[in-house]
């Protein structure tokens, strides 16, 4: 009987049953908002947490040479293991699947002085590959330690953004000098701000890097404090770790099962844990959301049941005037579908508005909620199904009635 008429009828019905329509709409809006927001916040939180983990570096393993804890081939325990350049070179040869490796010198006793300000930050002596591994990205106009710095043992320094702020305030640091234990170092770069939720020897924002060669030449240290390696594929981290231990065990003659000789921190373990945790978390949120929607749907179908019951007389009149079953059913299905569409759209709009108005400064803690397309499609589908079922079944049973029965009410 024409969509225009069905639509006109819908508007009339909504108007004549304001309270009921409003309640139904409220249920649907609430359901949609709850589902989309729950999942959006879950998504945002996950991204935030992953970003934080990644702050330290992607797929990296940090290794600290230490002491043996088991005797091996006639050698006693408590032997100190030291890592030098030739060990790094050997690992480069022997361990497959590594994208980068770098030794790291560390010092925590060098005085940084700019004007009257004195700070004693953590200092790294590192190779150029260190930057990519550990996400030490320079801000516009700066750079990290490069190969030429290494070759010429230049006295240059790369500052963490926090350290730069402490030393130079808001003024430009690149091109300025920092006195490190009395020796001037040229600032060549400042790190871009990043999120980092785990660290060793302090956050990168409060540290400084100088070329490893300079560090060695100035402070006379040969042994690396630690070394960092990066593997292309997270799945190959375990094999690489085993190979690192095997190689070093052979070179330094210690028991390959000795867990103390070289301690390792596999950053991917955090990430793996985080992934399974977030998966569980999101399944939980999703189930909650879907249940909320289903409860909303039950509400809608209840209301539709009452509506159909209440309007049996009207259905009877229409049947007496020659409405076919399909016309009766179409009217109710269309009404519920339209209600769910309107409710769903408003719910989406609310969720979208909340996400858009989400204060940026909370991003650090909660992440920024993201309404994903899949969630939208899923919610829309569920709502459509609920709307259809809620309208279809009561209407069909009403349309199958004898017109006399319907009219008698």
């Amino acid at each position, binding site marked *: 009987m*024409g969509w225009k*008429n069905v639509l006109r009828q819908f508007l*009339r019905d909504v108007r004549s049953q304001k309270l009921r329509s409003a309640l139904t709409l409220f249920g649907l809006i609430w359901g949609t908002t709850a589902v989309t927001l729950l999942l959006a916040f879950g998504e945002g939180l996950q991204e935030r947490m992953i970003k934080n983990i990644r702050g330290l570096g992607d797929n990296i393993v940090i290794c600290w040479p230490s002491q043996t804890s088991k005797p091996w081939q006639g050698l006693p325990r408590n032997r100190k293991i030291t890592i030098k350049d030739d060990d790094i070179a050997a690992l480069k040869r022997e361990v497959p699947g590594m994208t980068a490796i770098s030794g790291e010198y560390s010092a925590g006793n060098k005085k940084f002085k700019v004007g009257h300000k004195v700070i004693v930050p953590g200092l790294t002596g590192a190779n150029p590959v260190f930057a990519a591994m550990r996400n030490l990205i320079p801000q516009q106009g700066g750079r990290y330690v490069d190969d030429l710095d290494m070759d010429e043992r230049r006295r240059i320094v790369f500052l963490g953004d926090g350290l730069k702020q402490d030393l130079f305030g808001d003024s430009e640091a690149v091109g300025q000098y920092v006195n490190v234990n009395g020796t001037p170092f040229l600032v060549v770069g400042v790190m871009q701000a990043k999120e980092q939720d785990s660290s060793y020897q302090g956050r990168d924002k409060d540290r400084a890097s100088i070329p490893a060669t300079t560090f060695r030449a100035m402070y006379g240290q040969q042994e690396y404090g630690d070394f960092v390696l990066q593997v292309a594929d997270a799945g190959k981290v375990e094999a690489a770790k085993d190979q690192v231990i095997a190689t070093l065990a052979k070179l330094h003659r210690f028991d390959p099962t000795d867990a103390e000789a070289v301690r390792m921190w596999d950053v991917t373990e955090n990430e793996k844990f985080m992934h399974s945790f977030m998966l569980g978390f999101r399944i939980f949120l999703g189930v909650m959301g879907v249940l909320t929607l289903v409860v909303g749907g039950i509400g809608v179908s209840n209301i539709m049941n009452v509506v159909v019951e209440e309007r049996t007389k009207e259905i009877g009149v229409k049947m*007496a*005037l020659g409405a076919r079953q399909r016309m009766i059913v179409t009217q109710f299905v269309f009404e519920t579908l339209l209600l769910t569409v309107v409710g769903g759209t408003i719910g989406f709009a609310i969720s979208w508005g909340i996400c858009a108005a989400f204060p940026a400064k909370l991003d650090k803690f909660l992440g920024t909620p993201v309404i994903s397309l899949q969630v939208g499609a899923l919610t829309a589908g569920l709502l459509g199904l609920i709307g259809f079922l809620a309208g279809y079944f009561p209407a069909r049973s009403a*349309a199958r009635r*004898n017109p006399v029965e319907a009219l008698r009410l």
Partner: protein
Amino acid sequence: MFGNGKNGSNGGQRRDGDGAIIALAGVRKVYDTGAVKVEALRKVDLSIKRNEFVAIVGPSGSGKSTLMNIIGCLDTATEGSYCLRGEEVSGMSIDRLADIRNRRIGFVFQNFNLLPQLTAFENVEMPLLFKGAPAKERRERVEALFEQVGLADRMQHRPVELSGGQMQRVAIARALACEPDIILADEPTGNLDSAAGGDIIGKFEELWAKGHTLVLITHDGTIARRTRRVVRVQDGTVVDDAPAA
């Protein structure tokens, strides 16, 4: 498949031999409420010709309403045969019956049964919508009908804004919308005062004069007397069938 509705109003010369537009033979209706079976109609034979003006009378509980519902295809007989314009109705699907009600039968109810949320115009338009008539045809037809029942100035009013007599005239316009073969009226004056009731009966007489077939259910003797044939129903069967006195 339903022919041209216009044939309904000029009566007489039709293929169905004796001219009977309604032919019930041995119709029985039993209401089965589980434990109790109530026989509302038992063996009713009734034949109504084109352009008759018939009153069905009887005390309440006599079965006259059941008879009216079966004639109007609002209900189906438990047993027996019902031919409407030569076509056997029993055993038809729900949708076929809906089409028959739409095109062959116009109903006028005691309580008007106008939909309160629609305007008078939209109420009358409804059967035409169900029939699938195009918008222009609907509008012209509805306007003509309002002209015919003398309510051209009330088309955009809602039922609550009309008097009882006006509402019943809207209902008559609606009954006529698809140019049905028969107009069935169930106590059409039951909710009206005598002046408005008389006016409605006058309207029916007018329609009869134009060639319509009318079947009226009433328990009001004065109204029955204004028809041309009175069928008396009692205890589920026809006890008397005679021209109006």
